[in-house]
């Protein structure tokens, strides 16, 4: 795991949200290595940048959703995946949990919630 960069990958199909999240991650002093709006794009970027943390939206453009992407990223790269979702649908939550997510945050995410989750992921990653 130590080969991962202290980068954060942001995957969300809503560009304004990507921008807001990116801003907040950067304010924490971390680098956002990229952002994607589809699962495949996210996987591609993750392979490329090997981020320590991926912020993953559930609902994405394209056929695949966040869990599809997260499964691959977690499996292949070993990133800590923090799901950020607006849905609280039980099926969604069950599906998210199949990926052993690092955390699930529900929109709107407060600055404090985001920071705590990322800090924990990075800390774990370093540790």
């Amino acid at each position, binding site marked *: 795991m130590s080969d991962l960069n202290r980068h954060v990958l942001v995957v969300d199909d*809503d560009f304004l949200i990507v921008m*807001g999240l990116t*801003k907040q991650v950067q304010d924490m002093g971390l680098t956002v290595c990229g952002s994607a709006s589809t699962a495949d794009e996210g996987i591609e970027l993750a392979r490329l940048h090997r981020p320590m943390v991926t912020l993953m939206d559930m609902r994405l453009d394209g056929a695949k959703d966040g869990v599809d992407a997260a499964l691959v990223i977690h499996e292949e790269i070993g990133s800590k995946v923090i799901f950020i979702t*607006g849905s*609280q649908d039980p099926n969604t939550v069950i599906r998210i949990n199949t990926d052993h997510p690092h955390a699930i945050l529900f*929109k709107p995410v*407060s*600055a404090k919630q985001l920071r705590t989750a990322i800090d924990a992921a990075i800390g774990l990653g370093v540790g």
Partner: protein
Amino acid sequence: MDEAPAEQGLPAAAVALVAVAVVCGALLAIGPGDAPALHTILDTSLALLLAVAALLLWDMGQHAGSSFPKWLGIAFAASCVLAIIHVLITVEWSGPLAMIARSRSFLRPATWPVSVHLLPIGLGWALWRMQRGVTGGMSTYALGIVILCAGLFAAFQYLPTFSRPGLLGVTRPTLVLPPFLWAGVAIAAWRLRALNRLARPLTWMAGTLCLANIAMLYSRAPADGPAMAAHLGRAGGYLVLLLWAMQMATSDLRERIRAESALASLNADLDRRVAAQTAALRESETKFRSVVESLSEGLMIFDQHGTVVYHNPASARLHGFEREADGLSRRDELLVQRQGWDKDGVLLPVEEWPIVRVLRGERFQNQFVHVECADTGVTFDAVYNGSPIYSATGELLLGFVTLRDVREEARAQRELARAHDLLRGFTDAVPGVLFAKDRDGRMLIANDGAVALIGKERSTFIGKTDAEFLDDLAQAETVMANDRHVMDTGVSEQVEEQVSLANGAAAIWLSTKAPLRDTEGRITGVIGLSVDISARKASEVQLQLLNKGLNEALTHRDLLLREVYHRVKNNLQIVDSLLVMQEDHLADPAAKSALTGLRGRVYALGLVHHQLMGSANLRTFDVAPFLRELTSNILDGGASPGVSLAVSADPLDVGLDFAIPLGLLVTELVTNSLKHAFPGGEGHIDVLLSRNADGTFALVVSDDGTGYDRGAGSRGASAGGLGSKIITALVSQLKATMTIQSDQGTRAEIHIKAAA
């Protein structure tokens, strides 16, 4: 004793005969001699024997009421008279009786010849008469004997007595006839021995006399040996008869004693039997009486005139009188004041009354009569049986009728009929099909509903099974299987059954079936009520369809709501992003702080939607966890680690309209406290939401920080401009009142009237 009576005289007579024969043999062996003294003795004894024999025979005839012995007696008596004369003339008489001696020559034939002819002829005549069956005629016989005697007497006056020995050395040819006569008598008597018991001794006597008379043929002098043997033979002959007759008399006596004792024991036996039969009869009568007396049916016995001779207690009770006390005989007449009706209520004519019918010779059973006695007021319903009793000769002796009180039966039957009608009324009034079936599924009772369902006459399906009266065999078998299940388990149950209506239309029935039990609890059938639920079933199907549609709509609505909430939250995230990005372009810390405040308010809005989305009904959620999460997030964002916060909230489900102003209010108040109350960075905030008994709510946010000067107005004027406006607006929106105390810390109390 058991010998034949005719043989009884023989032993003694035989002894006498043997003795006589020995003496005769001795006399004849001596040869001709002269024994005048013996002659006289024998003549005398002959006279005596004849006298005794004559009397005995007469007496026997008298006793037995028979003529034969009497005739013999007469013959013997005549011989006796001759024998007496014979004896008399041997005496040398003197004086007046010397004439007897003088007439000796005239009377001479009396000595022997007349007598020996007379007796066998008399006896032969008597036997002949007996054999002819003649009775009586004593004087005729006696006259005959006298004439014969006289004739013989006369004849022997001239016939010679002794002569020279002639043919076969016979010296007295004139006496040749008697042996033949006696032989004839002997033969005749032997032949007739079955007719009279005297015939047998007569045979022996005649035989002996025959021999004696043969001996006489050789007599040469009045008292020589042959004459004495002849005399002795005669005596022996008579003795045989006498002894025999005496023995017969003795035997008769013994027989009579024996017969008498047998008769006595027979009598005693008869007495015993009579006594036993009497006792048996008495016992049988007692039994009969006790049976009859305790009979529950009434019994009346009457004679051939119709007069009642006996009422048993049941009959007396039924007729309403005491048997002893109430002048039974008067009422025993055919009562004219009594009236009767048959079961159809038709007045009974007198000739149809039970007793009158019996008197007519009728034998009948089960005649119902409703009886009313006009004089006693007694009324009863009875069933009569009656029968006459005839004597052996076929006359009507007695008659009897039995009567059974059927008032109770009749009442019970009426009650039963009424109950049945009532039941029928009930069952027919019940909407639906009501039925009872037996253990084999045969219909017992069916109401009008059942008749309508089956569509046939009631009589055509009572006693039949469903398989027989339902058109659809499959339906019938299902129904019968359900019936059997109830009867087998003994538990009532409700089942839905398909039985098509009489017009063929399909119908669904809700049948409640219960086991039918007898008094001992054994299951004897099934009773049930079936209600047509076709319409209900149809509406149930429709309802289910409607429900399904509703559920689908509801699910769809939930889906939409979730989607809406999802989009709201997503949009709030966008707003948050915009605020974050805006912040980047601001240098003024106050402006940045204002943006942070905005982000807190956006979070509060988002959290409300988050709670809604997680709730089961998507409309309301419990306020406590919401407040905790909300305040916790505010505290975390405040960068004051030394401040603690506690939330206490009564359980309360809140909706969007209440939760948003409440959440925003709490956000503003807690944010205010964090900003201003704790300059030292340490303190405590309490958030309290309580529900009052009157249904109002109280929200209290208090801190233990520094208060503020009331005169200075609300604190944080710079940043609180917006906050104050928001608080005022929300309090107003919630139709609440707010009081703020700032003394030792600040305490904001908001009283909310409106329900959540």
